[in-house]
């Protein structure tokens, strides 16, 4: 247990209210008014977190958000391994997102798989002035010649494409025809569209609908016999192998995974997904669109699940099994039981070291709520959370299923706010991204990157939970945090913790 004074929920609520008022003081009046709508204290029983979301970021505040291109190329499309994804426009976007998301895959890179290659049309001034369509044609020709085993091409638009009036759809159609019906997908994910990565996810989902489902390319027919137990994993990007440590559980309970969207995924898997009996959706934020579409168009039900931490894994396995017969339901129980000794051992080892520790999160569109259960399995408490690009339906799910009363909620938090909140609340751990990591470590606050798993993982599934627990322990309990102050300068710092 932390050596902290404990406070009542009412005291914490008052402290958080004061904190919000304090950070708003820094802003010019207009900005303060806008930001006030994104900051709140959760009240138990409410249907959402009482914050506005999915609204434009305010200029100059140091938002943590990215762009639509990041949402499409970086998240949804980039992991599809057997297609070549062109970062279409200037060199930077593709360069900065090259290989950094850790979407694991198996394949012969550069020959039949292309995830960790950076393909770009590297726009020059003349391409801006005269348009880039001709260059795009040539880029596709050169891809065909040098990478003959690619199964398809996507065009990931960077900002200039939409501004200079290029017709990437026409180019894609023409080249597809020329290449014998090859799947070529133009994606209008220019970075200035929308307010964050989120619109990029949506645009990327729509591109699958329009250019893969609706086209039914030459590979359209699945080469396997359907079974009553076919499911597709939707919204798992296989970061550090997350989709694999999830897939193994689904297969163990008796289901057959016919597609992974999109970590370690392939075009054939996307095309075959309409054959699934159930779509199981991990990252709701980035792939609910295509799940809803498949429900409407093909009558495939979908269900959300959560594979972080044993409590949520067991709940999810039972929920998924509920869509199938007794064989699968029994399978779920068998698997939960099988892994119980591992779960017990992990909790026995790490919970005593983490019990009562507090966590503040700020991640993308799913993890600000989804990982809370895993922390709770280890006896930790999430005292603040927020989404980089969540929508109101994310905050509803958060309020209804995850956060406790008086939790501090911060939507699209910026550098200034996040630093002030952490400085005052002094959590035992912050979970956020690379841009935040070193800021908080300098402040002496243990930190784990919760986008990339800090180059660790997987964190999904039972195998992942062991790694998660180990990682959180080594962050929180690293001996280095005791060395922060030169001994001749050391002063104790006050703490604020909820009373049990």
């Amino acid at each position, binding site marked *: 247990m932390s050596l902290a004074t404990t406070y009542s929920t009412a005291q914490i609520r008052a402290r958080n209210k004061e904190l919000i008022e304090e950070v708003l003081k820094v802003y010019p009046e207009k900005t303060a008014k806008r930001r006030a709508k994104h900051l709140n204290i959760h009240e138990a029983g409410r249907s959402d977190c009482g914050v506005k979301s999915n609204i434009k970021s305010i200029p100059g505040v140091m*938002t943590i958000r990215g762009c639509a291109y990041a949402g499409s190329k970086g998240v949804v499309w980039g992991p599809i391994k057997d297609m070549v994804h062109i970062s279409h426009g200037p060199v930077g976007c593709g360069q900065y997102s090259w290989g950094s998301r850790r979407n694991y895959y198996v394949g012969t890179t550069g020959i039949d798989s292309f995830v960790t290659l950076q393909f770009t049309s590297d726009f020059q001034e003349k391409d801006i002035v005269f348009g880039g369509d001709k260059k795009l044609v040539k880029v596709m020709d050169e891809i065909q010649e040098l990478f003959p085993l690619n*199964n398809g091409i996507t065009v990931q638009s960077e900002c200039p494409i939409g501004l200079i009036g290029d017709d990437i759809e026409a180019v894609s159609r023409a080249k597809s025809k020329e290449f014998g019906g090859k799947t070529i997908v133009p994606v209008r994910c220019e970075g200035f569209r929308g307010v964050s990565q989120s619109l990029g996810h949506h645009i990327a989902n729509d591109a699958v609908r329009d250019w893969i489902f609706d086209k039914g390319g030459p590979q359209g027919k699945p080469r396997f016999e359907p079974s009553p137990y076919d499911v597709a994993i939707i919204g798992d990007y296989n970061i550090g192998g997350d989709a694999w440590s999830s897939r193994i559980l689904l297969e163990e309970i008796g289901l057959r995974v016919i597609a992974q969207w999109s970590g370690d995924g392939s075009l054939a898997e996307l095309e075959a997904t309409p054959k699934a009996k159930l779509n199981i959706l991990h990252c709701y934020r980035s792939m609910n669109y295509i799940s809803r579409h498949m429900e409407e168009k093909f009558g495939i039900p979908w269900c959300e699940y959560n594979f972080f931490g044993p409590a949520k894994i067991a709940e999810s396995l039972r929920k998924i099994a509920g869509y199938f017969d007794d064989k699968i339901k029994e399978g779920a129980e068998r698997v939960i039981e099988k892994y119980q000794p591992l779960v017990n051992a992990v909790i026995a080892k790490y919970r005593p070291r983490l019990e009562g520790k507090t966590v503040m999160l700020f991640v993308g569109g799913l993890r600000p709520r989804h990982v809370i259960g895993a922390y709770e399995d280890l006896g930790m408490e999430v005292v603040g959370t927020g989404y980089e690009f969540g929508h109101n339906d994310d905050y509803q799910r958060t309020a209804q299923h995850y956060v406790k009363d008086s939790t501090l909620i911060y939507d699209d938090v910026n550098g200034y706010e996040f630093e002030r909140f952490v400085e005052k609340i002094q959590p035992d751990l912050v979970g956020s991204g690379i841009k935040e990591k070193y800021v908080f470590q300098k402040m002496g606050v243990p930190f784990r990157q919760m986008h990339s798993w800090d180059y660790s993982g997987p964190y999904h599934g039972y195998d992942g939970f062991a*790694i998660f627990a180990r990682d959180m322990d080594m962050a929180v309990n690293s001996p280095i945090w005791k060395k922060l102050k030169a001994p001749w300068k050391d002063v104790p710092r006050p703490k604020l913790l909820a009373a049990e």
Partner: protein
Amino acid sequence: MAQSADHVLDHFDLFRGPEYQQMLDNKKMFENPRDPAEVERIKEWTKTSEYREKNFAREALTINPAKACQPLGAVFASVGFQGTLPFVHGSQGCVAYYRSHLSRHFKEPSSCVSSSMTEDAAVFGGLNNMIDGLANSYNMYKPKMIAVSTTCMAEVIGDDLNAFIKTSKEKGSVPADFDVPFAHTPAFVGSHVTGYDNALKGILEHFWDGKAGTADKLERKPNRKINLIGGFDGYTVGNLREIKRIFELMGIEYTILADNSDVFDTPTDGEFRMYDGGTSLEDAASALHAKATISMQQWCTEKTLPFIADHGQEVLAFNYPVGVSATDEFLMALSRISGNEIPEELARERGRLVDAMADSSAHIHGKKFAIYGDPDLCHGLAAFLLELGAEPTHVLSTNGNKAWVEKMQALFASSPYGKNCHAYPGRDLWHMRSLLFTEPVDLLIGNTYGKYLERDTGVPLIRIGFPIFDRHHHHRSPVWGYQGGMNVLVKILDKIFDEIDKKTNVLGKTDFSFDIIR
């Protein structure tokens, strides 16, 4: 089940277990994979001269380039000024990328703001984003200066920074006399080194030439100081500190322009320093009066140096000096300009580097190297290799131009070891892949992305360049100065010895050469 609480298996062990291997094997039936024989055939084909020819015939497609875009360089230069917040006008995702990229290399925070332009700004222009953005940044982050640059979005729609900043000041976003230098940094021109150049020139122009018409131009009153510009450099922390040490040893009064060596190396002691160190704004202004300005990287200062020369200073550019002769030239130039002698301490450091090279050059002599990176870095490393009797066989710079090739050819011509060496401007790492297959070399020098080349071709990679994401802390040690040369030498030698050991460690097969002394 292989996972256990006692011995937690990480991804690299976990997925190699039989259960996961079986699972991944079974997954293939859903992937419609290519015939393995066909994959093998194409893999072998990509190693051929025929493939190389097609690869080098590319006109439109770039694969694995070794360059980034202008605003990254602008942000890098801007944070080198005291209390300066870089402000990039345009789409916000770009700024998230620059910050991540710099943080992944330096393992440090990287502070920078965006004007967050979206669709409406694309139609109506980003003036309001500038007005609101400057006001918010100024109030929240209390900078001493805000340095503005642009993303390609703002450049395509033609936003005018000078006018926008002026209007913002009129609207009270920041005080009228608050310093807001600016530079247009279109991503579709040049690379990050161009952005560095533009941003630095923008800042100097601001202070020297009347702050965009809001103040009198400064009058140059020559003094004895020497200005130094490091250029875009992944080793900025170690290098600039080494340069300062050299200046102090020589008793030279100096100003480092864009000194970001502290902001990218702050202590962990409970306090986050968003700004730290940096060239003071007073020093940036009074740098006008210096006797001379030295650029350590010619291609990072192609516009800045002529601008400074036009103001009456001597200017001098090096090409990322690494090794004995390049450091000699640098020190002799310092001595000539300052009139101060090179102290014995530096002569002894030189002697130690020569000593080390003499001790070890037998292991490097005659070895063939491939190098890629920024144009100046390539030149500096190639020159050092020639001193060691090695051959920099392939030198590739995606952001190198014709003038760079000429300079490289002159360098090759200056040494018998440069005879069979070639410079490749505007090429990328997929070209390098073909070069390594068709004209093999012993070692490769480059940034982290070279690990893909090492995997594919088997040529061992020595990590020198930017970005280095997968090794930690090397940026804290210099590669400039005689001591920096020593660091580079050791890095090269360590790799060579590790490789010899790896080749000779099979028990009873190759271990007759597994020598204890090398």
